């Protein structure tokens, strides 16, 4: 406040000088009229007597006096109005949100408004008459004089930016917008509007920094990153993307995708791109046939970008070269197949005596049937029809034995992965045929619940059967200590939705302990004395290779339930698609 008062004190000095000027003017006007009346008087000297003259003069002077008084009043009123209006403008000038400064040709500050003095952090008295260079950062001094020169010479509005040093530690950036004006002595002045742009400059720098950081990050990514706007034009591309296409940054930016990518490439991406533009993120894999070079595989992810109205305003494309990863997957797949094969051989070894028993059933039946036949034939006359029926029965049993052998052979033979359309329920039944003896010898009742008629699933039937056999044998083993009347193996198959099926294998054993649960899916961890501890691990690998999931369903308190779900159209083992 003190500051402001001192400002107004200096204003009063101005007021006094105005009043003095006004008085001088009035006196000048009075003298002028008086001399005019005198000259009139001199011209009519002849006709007037002295008294007449005096009377006339007195009257004239009275008239003039009245006139002058009236004029004086008018002038005073006008002066008051002017004063009010001047104060108004002075207020506008001083309280304007922008700073005004007036420089003379030498760069001396002739006038400044209150905002300006606040900006420069000095009282106006300490500013007016000082050269502006006092506040300028030395390096842009010459730029300021150049600005001044241009304004005064050209008379055109000129805009420049300068940096000011307010204190040793305080710097601000300003924008100066200047025009030329004329002073009282017909000299030129430079009238400038000054805006503090420190904050916006800082933001600009920050934004620039951010953009640089973002570019640095995206450039160092092994992914190709690009941003396409709503018209499929490139707004951004990282180095990997640019290098992949073998172009420069300027070649990419602003270019539409269909103009930039090869026709073949674009046509394959287009449908996915459309999905992303409809607001749905997509990921897909693509094969790129190299011209003369090795074929490459890429994985493309397109993520829609939404504006504030939730409309898609662009998409972010992430492209990864997965050729190496696929090569590893092929190796991994081979390892899994080997491990699964090894595990099957192991299982078959363990089941050898059970399998022998199973094979014994049809063989025993054949032997009895043929003995019975012999006896019938010996006892003449024999019943032809009965003999033929019995021979047919023998044939059936031979087929049954053959099937068991075939089944075993398919399980033990090492083979390549073979995805085919398979009936899941038939597969469960087939696995159970093999387990029949084991179930019988362990007095385990079997309950098959096929809740749905599952459509054919695209899976490797040997591997999935292996999973079912493994889980079922685990279930049978888990019931060794259960009362033989209560041993129940339940296999339930169902469709979870239109794309996935689920198989659950439940035993009625005592369940797993907490400790067993913890290490359930860890390799070489077996609850069995002679177990390898690989069964579950391999089952899990097989299921996940089919893009499915194997888990322990803990919602049942008695017994253990293992479930697995697999897509009907398993895209497992990618390169076999």
């Amino acid at each position, binding site marked *: 406040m003190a500051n402001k008062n001192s400002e107004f004190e200096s204003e009063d000095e101005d007021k006094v000088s105005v009043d003095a000027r006004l008085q001088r003017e009035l006196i000048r006007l009075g003298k002028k009229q008086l001399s005019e009346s005198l000259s009139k008087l001199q011209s009519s000297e002849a006709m007037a007597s002295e008294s007449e003259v005096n009377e006339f003069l007195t009257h004239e002077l009275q008239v003039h006096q009245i006139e002058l008084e009236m004029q004086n009043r008018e002038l005073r009123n006008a002066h008051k109005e002017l004063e009010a209006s001047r104060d108004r403008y002075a207020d506008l000038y001083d309280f304007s949100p922008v700073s005004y400064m007036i420089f003379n040709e030498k760069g001396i500050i002739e006038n400044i408004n209150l905002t300006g003095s606040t900006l420069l952090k000095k009282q106006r008295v300490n500013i007016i008459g000082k050269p502006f260079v006092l506040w300028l950062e030395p390096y842009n001094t010459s730029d300021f004089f150049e600005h001044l020169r241009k304004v005064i010479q050209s008379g055109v509005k000129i805009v420049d930016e300068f940096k000011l040093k307010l204190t040793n530690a305080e710097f601000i950036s300003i924008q100066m917008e200047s025009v030329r004006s004329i002073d009282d002595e017909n000299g030129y002045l430079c009238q400038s509007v000054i805006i503090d742009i420190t904050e916006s400059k800082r933001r600009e720098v920050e934004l620039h920094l951010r953009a640089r950081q973002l570019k640095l990050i995206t450039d160092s990514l092994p992914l190709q990153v690009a941003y396409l706007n709503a018209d499929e034009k490139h707004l951004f591309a990282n180095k990997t993307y640019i290098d992949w296409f073998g172009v420069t940054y300027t070649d990419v930016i602003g270019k539409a995708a269909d103009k930039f990518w090869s026709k073949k490439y674009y046509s394959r991406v287009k449908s996915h791109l459309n999905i992303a533009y409809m607001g749905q993120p997509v990921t897909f894999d693509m094969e790129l046939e190299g011209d003369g070079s090795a074929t490459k595989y890429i994985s493309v992810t397109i993520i829609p970008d939404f504006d504030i109205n939730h409309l898609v305003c662009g998409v972010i494309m992430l492209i990864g070269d997965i050729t190496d990863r696929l090569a590893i997957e092929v190796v991994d797949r081979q390892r899994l197949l080997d491990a699964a094969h090894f595990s099957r051989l192991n299982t078959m070894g363990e089941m050898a*005596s059970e399998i022998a028993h199973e094979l014994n*059933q049809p063989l*025993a*039946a054949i032997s*009895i049937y043929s003995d019975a036949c012999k006896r019938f034939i010996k006892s003449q006359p024999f019943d032809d029809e009965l003999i033929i029926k019995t021979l047919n029965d023998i044939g059936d*049993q031979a087929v049954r034995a053959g099937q068991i052998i075939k089944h075993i052979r398919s399980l033990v033979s090492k083979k390549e992965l073979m995805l085919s359309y398979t009936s899941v329920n038939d597969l469960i039944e087939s696995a159970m045929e093999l387990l029949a*003896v084991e179930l019988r010898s362990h007095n385990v009742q079997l309950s098959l619940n096929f809740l749905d008629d599952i459509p054919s699933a695209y899976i490797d039937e040997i591997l999935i059967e292996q999973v079912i056999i493994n889980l079922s044998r685990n279930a049978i083993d888990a019931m060794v200590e259960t009362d*033989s009347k209560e041993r129940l193996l339940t296999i339930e198959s169902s469709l979870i939705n239109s794309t996935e099926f689920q198989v659950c294998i439940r035993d009625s054993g005592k369940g797993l302990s907490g400790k067993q649960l913890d290490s359930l899916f860890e390799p070489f961890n077996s609850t069995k004395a002679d177990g390898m501890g690989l069964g579950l691990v391999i089952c899990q690998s097989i299921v996940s290779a089919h893009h499915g999931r194997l888990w322990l369903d803990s919602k049942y308190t008695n017994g253990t339930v293992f479930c697995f779900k697999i897509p009907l159209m398993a895209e497992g083992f990618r390169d076999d698609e």
Partner: protein
Amino acid sequence: MMNEYMVHIVDDDNAIRESLSLLMKSEGIQATTYATAEDFLSQYHPTESQCLLLDIRMPGMSGLELIEELKKRNISIPVIFITGHGDISMAVQAMRAGATDFIEKPFDSDYLIRRTRDCLQECLCLSHSNELKQKMNERLSRLTKRERQVMDLLVDGKQNKTIAYELNISVRTVELHRAKVMEKLSAHSLSDVVRTSILSS
């Protein structure tokens, strides 16, 4: 006449059931088949002369459990167990549980029919059994101490390897003893040895 005889066949395998039934038919012996022990229990009616051909391994009530159940119900019926090949421990258990005999799959039809007939003629079965017992004891007495040890372990279902380890002799020696045991007992198979051993005791 023949109609007084009735063989009950209990086996969960349809082919085994049907073929056994046919074999009995070829010999003029009436047979009824059951898929489970429970079915047999619920349909059983005592008749004059009958015999039970029983599968030892079955889902639900097993053959051995059925024998226990029959004892509980005071049903006296001769039982011939059907066992898998080489399933010595099961055979021993069956005999100890009170089975008349056991027969291994695949079957020797003649032997099965002979034993079935024995069982059906109960009185004969008993005297025959005593006669048999005498014969067996006489045969057993021919064994040396070592041979007797080997036989006991064989009847326990032990492998040659295990026997060699337990008696601290070589496998080859076990094999020799084993051959001697078979010869002295006029046994054609391990089941014959088991039979002789259990029937004599």
